[in-house]
């Protein structure tokens, strides 16, 4: 609200300022489930499950894996409520650009030959067969 008072033209976006934090206590996945188009939500979900799988492989004696196990359960609960099948989520995408040689298994961005890693997700690309 301070920016609205200091910069009156920002009053046009007052609605945005007022509601910006109302869902701050929720997981981005839950917000995405309600607000995002289905494809974008599936992308977000795919990434999150990948990060959880990756985090679970890390070892730490203080119970690191306990958190990730609970987080995974919670995300799977959300998945069950949204009626999205896990196998559907992990289906490889259709090739959209004929010149593409590989795609990112997380965000589905396509890359020409010569690229090995996705610049957004920092993971290895999957070559098209």
């Amino acid at each position, binding site marked *: 609200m301070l920016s609205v008072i200091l910069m009156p033209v920002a009053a046009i976006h007052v*609605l945005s300022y*007022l509601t910006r934090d109302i869902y701050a206590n*929720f997981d981005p996945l839950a917000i995405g489930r309600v607000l995002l188009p289905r494809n974008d939500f599936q992308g977000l979900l795919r990434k999150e499950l990948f990060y959880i799988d990756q985090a679970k492989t890390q070892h730490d004696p203080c119970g690191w894996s306990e958190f990730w196990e609970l987080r995974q359960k919670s*995300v799977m609960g959300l998945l069950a409520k949204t009626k999205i099948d896990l196998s559907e989520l992990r289906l490889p995408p259709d090739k959209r650009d004929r010149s593409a040689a590989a795609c990112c298994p997380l965000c589905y961005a396509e890359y020409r030959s010569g690229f090995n890693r996705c610049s957004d997700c920092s993971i290895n690309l999957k070559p098209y067969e």
Partner: protein
Amino acid sequence: MREIFSVLFPYIVILYIIDCISYVKRHDFLFVSNFRGYFKLINSGLCIKSVSPLSRTFLSRNNPVLFTSSGIYLPTSEQHCQNIFYRSEDFTFIPYHDMDTFEIDGKRVRLNHGNFINPASIRYAKHIGSFIQELKDSKPWERRDKIKAFLDEANDFGQIENHEKSFTIPFFYLKSLCIFLFACIFIILPIGVYANHSVYFNFPIFVLMILLIYLTIIIMSYTSSVRFTRKNSIKD
């Protein structure tokens, strides 16, 4: 007065564009709606969040604290902010029995005078702060269920759906005023300043009208937010 506005108008446009730009940190999620009401997700970097007066933005962040039955993991450094992946070496572990001082300072939760938790908002800082306190005060065998319930509650999208349904009514007049202000500044004002027929344009009355709309928006946003928060207080 027209001369003053012809000088001022480009600056007003620049200020508006500045207000439309936002920087999203890594691990933050900014949900932005366009003029048709569809949302897109911005993950990180500089972005134009909203040009339309109707657009809404919601900020969320992946939980900065990892809870376990024996303590919490906090991100130690900027390292975590630069990494997409969660690596245990980027976190420090604090057992519940080692938590001495604990305070919520605006957007920050301060632990043992030094370890900070930096949630995305004051609302979330309070939420996470009180949950850590609750875990600290709980018996060790009760904590796992509490953590599970906390994570499940954060994923309860039904609450968000209900909230979205009840959104339009309390903000209807405010929304209309924002659109009207937008039209006044970016459609009527340039016509008055640059069009040939602007001799008939009464600038003092126009300025007075803009001021009135602005003040009404400020008052209405305050009252609407108080009423809306009281009526739909979700997980405060």
